[in-house]
């Protein structure tokens, strides 16, 4: 039995193609068609007029981080350091403290994410056993004028709300 061999047709060897000029004119005809249709009606352009028209963000998009809470508003994070250990960019800095209520033992007193170092890989979300950190805020444009502003504290992370409903988020594969 012979191996299945798929022969790929190689173009560029016929004399018309080796003449080159004919193919050049064909290519120029294509580009000119594009030019003309866009020139005569620029609503056909395949662009989004960005700052005014925002792109549609799907639930699976890894945007800026947030920390989730229980129904009573207390933080879900138990300061297990899984995300910090997993983080390839080492942008998460956690300090653990005692919780106080009976839910768990530990709670983070400091949870800093340096967004300048973050590579938005989502490993922290994958690693979290408590579903306490998520990247479902839908914020894709992270900018500031100082370095300090790019460091997210625990309060900022808790204050950010998710952009999607729980169902949509779950359907996204989380």
């Amino acid at each position, binding site marked *: 039995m012979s191996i299945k061999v798929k022969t790929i047709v190689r173009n560029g060897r016929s004399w018309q193609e080796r003449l080159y000029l004919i193919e*050049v004119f064909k290519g*120029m005809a294509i*580009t000119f068609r594009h030019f003309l249709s866009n020139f005569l009606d*620029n609503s056909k*352009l*395949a*662009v989004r007029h960005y700052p*005014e028209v925002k792109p549609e963000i799907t639930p699976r998009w890894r945007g800026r981080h947030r920390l989730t809470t229980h129904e009573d508003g207390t933080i879900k994070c138990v300061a297990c350091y899984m995300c910090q250990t997993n983080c390839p960019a080492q942008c998460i800095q956690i300090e653990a403290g005692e919780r106080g209520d009976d839910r768990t033992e530990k709670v983070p007193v400091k949870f800093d994410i340096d967004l300048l170092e973050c590579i938005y890989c989502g490993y922290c979300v994958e690693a979290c056993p408590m579903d306490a950190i998520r990247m479902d805020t839908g914020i894709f444009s992270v900018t500031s004028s100082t370095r300090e502003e790019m460091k997210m504290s625990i309060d900022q992370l808790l204050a950010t709300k998710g952009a999607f409903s729980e169902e949509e988020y779950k359907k996204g594969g989380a």
Partner: protein
Amino acid sequence: MTLQDIILIIIRVAFGAFVPLCFVAVSVWMERRGASFIQDRSGPNRANILGFRAGGLVQNLADAVKLFFKEDVIPGHIKHKFYFVLAPIIVCVTALVSFAVVPFADTLVLGGKEYLMQAIPTDLGILWFLAIVGFSVYGIILAGWSSHSKYGMLGGLRAAAQTISYEIPMVLAIISLLVVYGTVSLNEMAQFQGQLLFGFIPMWGVLLQPLGVIIFIIAAFAEANRVPFDLAEGESELVAGYHVEYSGLKFTIFFMGEYVAMFASSAIIVTLYFGGYQIPWFNTATLIKYAVPVTLLLMIVTPVAAKFIAAWIRKNNVSHYERENDPRVREANVYIKIVWGTVILLEAILFLYLVFASGGAADNILVACLQVCTFLAKTTCMLFVYVWVRWTLPRFRYDQLQKLGWNVLLPLSLLNIFVTSAIVVALS
């Protein structure tokens, strides 16, 4: 020297100096918007003055301001600062001067005197162009050498090798053209192209020299260091090639030189092969003879054209998203008013001409204006071809470039000379 002489000298020199510089802005704009339209993008269309974007032309102004105010660095390792500064000047000045012999209208006869409508009224024509264009590569070599860096050096070397190998087919293509026209003066070449072939086809160089025009255009692209022959600045290999060490104003001058060279070589291509300033079927004598009917025709055509332009502006100068009180519509209103204002002004001038001045020297001036417009329109089309080719074809590999020059274009241009000479001898 009368007042008329002095005025005409000023007009011609001003045309030769400022039109190429103005066309830098036009061709940069055409390059960026043309490229984006070819690639289904919109290109620079946000920069504005009081909300007026002029179709993206304001972006050029912004870029120019940016380039003027940027720090102009001369790197510390450069030993020959004089040559380093001289290089962009050579590139820009040679490009500018090479345009000086291109006629932009037929010989103007005023008060019994004849004026060659070129910035430098000389019959050297194509010889001057070739001599000056050959110089521009010195600027590039000098830039590459005085930059004292590997990228710059390699860019300069490539430019030198490329220009030398493409100058030969270019000149050979011109030789067969000289056999056809029998003159080196560009003005006489343009006059020759005003004749009719078999009585009904304009006798343009492109019809008499179909092979020559292809060779010449390819060589002109290579001379101007444009895609697909821009190996001298191939950014994927050499960062920026010969101007890698340049910044600020010196880079601007390089940049301008490149576009002026593009304009000059488009003008030469138009003059040699596409009839120069000649309007097809209307050579200068015919135009002067039928000045009044032509004027009437113009007075009818301009409002019709303006109507189409206004409709086009109305359709395309809008925001393509929900926007309250769209400022672009207001902008379009102003543009349309400007278009109609220009039409009214033109009609008024033509009307005054018809009533008061037709039949005299004004005929000759009117014809010259028409020919200048024709020449600029043709040159703009040729500039668009430059842009169009740039955004269609990928860059050649260096050995392919040299092979094309020496193994294909050189034999073809020699063949072209033999065939042309044989036909010319047989016909005469």
